[in-house]
């Protein structure tokens, strides 16, 4: 698979001296769905901001599609990497849902029918097609989160970064986001998602990156990262594998990171 982004020896120190990243080496590939987990303050949000130039590495380098991001303007990087913030109110500003969703796509040069199609597809993906004329602040928090996600989807960037997309969502909202993540992957786009929800990560992502104190401590598919042998490493950063994985180990079924894997193993026994 083609490397979409490559981080080599990336470190980052905030201006106040706080070190947020140290020696991060990662290659993110085309069409890959990557979940990043770790405690608050472990460097997850800082890491994903290196990809779209909102933050620049203070050590090492970041390349996107083979091109060093140093010196490339953030507006240029926005064509490649779309980032939905954890807090939707940090990105929402328009007077209607439709104009909010169209803003980023228009900035990337889409016009007319092409813009309408991208906006409509994004609204349908998040289930807000009936709210196009609504003022964003008349939506509840959970739908403002979905609106912020739609604005990023409409930009149709090859890399989509979602910072905590499932917070404030009910079970249906989480399922909707799971479908969106799946369909992005199917169209060959790379999805990088920060989450504290281990079940969501185990079920929707092919690769899990565990961060602690600015470093990557585990990196692999859910079946590896959530295996019993890594339980201690997860616990060292106050995380634990999803219940399905822990139950599978307890019942001697091997590593069953997702609910369906556990039930399959139980049915086959």
């Amino acid at each position, binding site marked *: 698979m083609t490397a979409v982004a490559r981080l080599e020896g990336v470190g980052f120190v905030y201006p106040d001296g706080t070190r947020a990243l140290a020696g991060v080496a990662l290659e993110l590939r085309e069409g890959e769905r990557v979940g990043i987990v770790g405690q608050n303050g472990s460097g997850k949000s800082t890491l994903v901001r290196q990809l779209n130039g909102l933050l620049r590495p203070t050590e090492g380098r970041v390349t996107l599609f083979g091109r060093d991001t140093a010196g490339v303007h953030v507006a240029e990087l926005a064509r490649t990497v779309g980032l939905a913030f954890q807090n939707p109110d940090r990105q929402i500003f328009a007077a209607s849902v439709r104009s909010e969703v169209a803003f980023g796509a228009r900035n990337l040069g889409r016009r007319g029918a092409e813009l309408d199609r991208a906006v409509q597809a994004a609204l349908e993906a998040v289930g807000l097609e009936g709210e196009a004329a609504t003022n964003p602040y008349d939506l509840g928090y959970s739908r403002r989160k979905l609106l912020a996600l739609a604005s990023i989807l409409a930009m149709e960037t090859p890399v989509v970064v979602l910072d905590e997309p499932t917070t404030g969502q009910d079970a249906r909202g989480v399922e909707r986001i799971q479908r969106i993540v799946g369909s992005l992957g199917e169209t060959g786009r790379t999805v990088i998602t920060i989450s504290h929800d281990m079940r969501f990560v185990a079920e929707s992502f092919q690769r899990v990156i565990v961060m602690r104190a600015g470093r990557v401590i585990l990196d692999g598919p859910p079946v590896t990262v959530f295996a019993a042998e890594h339980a201690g490493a997860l616990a060292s950063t106050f995380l634990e594998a999803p219940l399905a994985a822990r139950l599978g180990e307890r019942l001697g079924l091997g590593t069953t990171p997702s609910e369906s894997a556990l039930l399959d193993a*139980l049915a086959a026994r």
Partner: protein
Amino acid sequence: MSEAIVVNAVNDAPPTPALLLDGVRYGYAGTRRWVLDGVNLEVAAGRVLGIVGPNEAGKSTLCLVAAGLAPAAIGGRLEGDVLLGGLSTRDANPHQMAQRAGILFQNPVTQLSATAPTVYEEVAFGPRNLGLAVDEIADRVEHALGALRIEALGPRDPMRLSGGQAQLVALASVVALRPPVLVLDEPTSQLDPAGTRLVGEALAGLAAATATAIVVVEHKTWLLADLADACALVADGRVVVHGATADVLADDRLVELGVEPPPAVRLRRAAAVRGVALDSAVVDAVAAARLAADPDTVEPVP
């Protein structure tokens, strides 16, 4: 219409509830819709009521109404009664309400005063506005920061915190007001699992130690399973199910309405649907077990 939820199993004749919602209907200004449409709830001092429900069920509106901000501060139409320690929010002035109920908004950044230079000053902002003595303010700030284990954030700029840190600071600033009724709208939404457990323990401790009545809206039903004495499932502005936490969280209507049940409930249901045997006792035991960190994998923080 549902009956009142009684979150008090101690006395035969309970005292005046800390919070009572009686036949409450509420609609926002400029709209015709009732976002809350006949809500009856009651929370006694020292008890924790969990509120669960799908997106747009009216949970955040319920918080605004219960804390007396709606309609007093934001307008709208209120029918029925909201009583804080027996005082109707319709009759109370803002100062009286601020002493009777504290609210944590869903978006913690909304909560911060944007005037305080440090986290310490931010948490002191509310108690200072209550006109308390300096020693009392200092005591409350230190206690609130300590309960949430964020003493180290004291000198930091409140506007330069991570989402999770900002949420803990916002919660500390409400806890420092020591209101008899605490209304929390998704207090752990930005927190990692360890931070979520910490908040759960802090809230349980607060309810027990200071007889605070707590209303907490949560999507993390696993947290409510440990924390809440009772739960109410809210949908379309009405209370659909109410009762003991374990019963509400295992109720089929929870899933039908699109609320994520605790992991153990979810797995048991999925196994039943698939028709595979899964020992409930084992599920509960594994769900309750806490893994210990492996010291070999713990490296020093750079």
